[in-house]
């Protein structure tokens, strides 16, 4: 089927965008290899610090030592796909709003949010394969990990990772749209990345956070980005608890995607295209 024909169906457009995005990220082979190397090195360093911490306090945060080390490697494997340390599309969206190219995007007969969602799905799919598999495998070879043998748990984990990507997308879409109201959005980009690192579990598992702080961060949307999928794979969330985790992700995804819609319609009313 020719591209033109495929694009005539509305759902075909988004599939084409996702596939194109997958291919685009697959092009940067050296950068991907460098990313894999970095994630693996950080995985090693953090794994040893977690081993030392759990040696002092076994069962801290409800994990045993092997589970804690596994948590580290899950985090490293998801950094790319869930864009836990930044990256992704929001900087590009930001730039398009700043330089006015957004007017062209709005002129297209596609929905802006769905377009970028499709784009981000393609990116995440590539980065899960390209940047996730190798660090996880290295971690499993070098350390004693606690990985499930039941394929159903792995499927549930993949579903949860998908949820994590959607929640992450919804947050980053809001961050990207902020450029409509701010001339220099680099501060917002940075702040959102920092909050993400802190509240997703990237820094330490959220169950280790003390007192009220721990209670609060476990309910924030960022918890859906690493803590929930990790707990599903570690079977700390099994059965009904795993379903609750997925509902938690779906809930935040719905709320944040809806907020993105509102922001989008408010923003597009503001667009004034300069010049002829």
């Amino acid at each position: 089927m020719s591209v033109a024909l495929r694009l005539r169906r509305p759902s075909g457009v988004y599939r084409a965008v996702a596939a194109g995005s997958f291919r685009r990220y697959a092009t940067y082979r050296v950068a991907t290899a460098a990313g894999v190397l970095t994630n693996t090195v950080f995985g090693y360093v953090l794994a040893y610090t977690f081993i030392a911490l759990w040696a002092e306090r076994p069962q801290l945060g409800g994990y045993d030592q092997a589970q804690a080390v596994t948590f580290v490697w899950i985090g490293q494997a998801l950094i790319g796909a869930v864009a836990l340390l930044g990256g992704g599309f929001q900087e590009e969206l930001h730039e398009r709003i700043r330089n006015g190219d957004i007017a062209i995007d709005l002129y297209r007969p596609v929905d802006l949010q769905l377009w970028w969602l499709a784009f981000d799905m393609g990116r995440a799919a590539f980065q899960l394969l390209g940047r996730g598999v190798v660090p996880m495998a290295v971690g499993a070879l070098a350390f004693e990990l606690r990985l499930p043998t039941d394929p159903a748990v792995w499927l549930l984990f993949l579903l949860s990772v998908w949820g994590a990507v959607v929640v992450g997308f919804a947050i980053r879409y809001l961050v990207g749209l902020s450029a409509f109201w701010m001339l220099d959005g680099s501060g917002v980009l940075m702040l959102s990345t920092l909050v993400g690192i802190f509240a997703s579990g990237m820094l330490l598992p959220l169950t280790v956070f003390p007192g009220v702080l721990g209670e609060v961060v476990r309910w924030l949307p960022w918890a859906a980005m690493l803590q929930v999928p990790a707990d599903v794979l570690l079977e700390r969330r099994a059965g009904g608890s795993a379903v609750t985790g997925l509902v938690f992700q779906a809930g935040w995804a719905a709320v944040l995607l809806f907020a993105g819609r509102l922001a989008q319609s408010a923003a597009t009313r503001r667009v004034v295209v300069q010049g002829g």
Partner: protein
Amino acid sequence: MADALRSYALIAAMWIRAALAYRASFLLAVLGSFLASGLDFVAIMIMFSHIEVLGGFTVAEVALLYGATSTSLGLTELLVGNVSRVGARVRDGTMDTLLVRPVPVFLQLAADRFALRRLGRVTQGLLVLAWALYALGPVRAAWSPAQWALLVIMVLSGTAIYGALYALGGAFQFWAQDAAEVQNCFTYGGNTMLQYPPTVFAAELVRGVTFVVPLAFVNWVPASRLLDRESPLGLPGWVDFTSPLVAAAACGVAALVWRIAVNSYRSTGS
């Protein structure tokens, strides 16, 4: 040499003026740099809310290690951090512009987009270092003048060692333009590792960062003298004072590799 440094200062001053034109953005960026660097220390504090010692080190001792490596890395980032943009410059062709100017390419790259906001990390590192000195109490009170000198030498040597790694990483990008992230393994990855005591890590890993990539000389080795501990790997005591020599050797190797890389650079033309 004096001319070259003057050019560096002029370029850096220009970028500082540019950054200060948007005062609010600049302050936000400094704050961001401060917080980004501080997150790791938050993790350490959360860890120590559950434990008394990590790998046999108290929180004050870990803070000394953390403060030293953060300050060193912060100073390196500030002074030569943008050398890591070599790949981008080769790709878009602006490297050629630098080559025809009468200032050493390395200094031009280092000063290009000089980011004063990186004082955020330096400040954060210094604050943790100051707190560590306070919290070390009796240990610090017993320091000889030589040990105080070693503290300063440790931070400056660390800055030079990280600087050599940045230069090597930049040189590597002449060959692999997309590999900017590789050097992060050694700089940021190394920094994360050095924030924790050497006793936490496997012996092969400690050997690797002592004899292959001499990161251990940034803080682990000299700090063992300040904390009255065995040198990592049981090295003889005099090794504690060798950080400046290691730093000089690392910079020498980096300078050589940089020279080879620049000389082997072939522009893509038009």
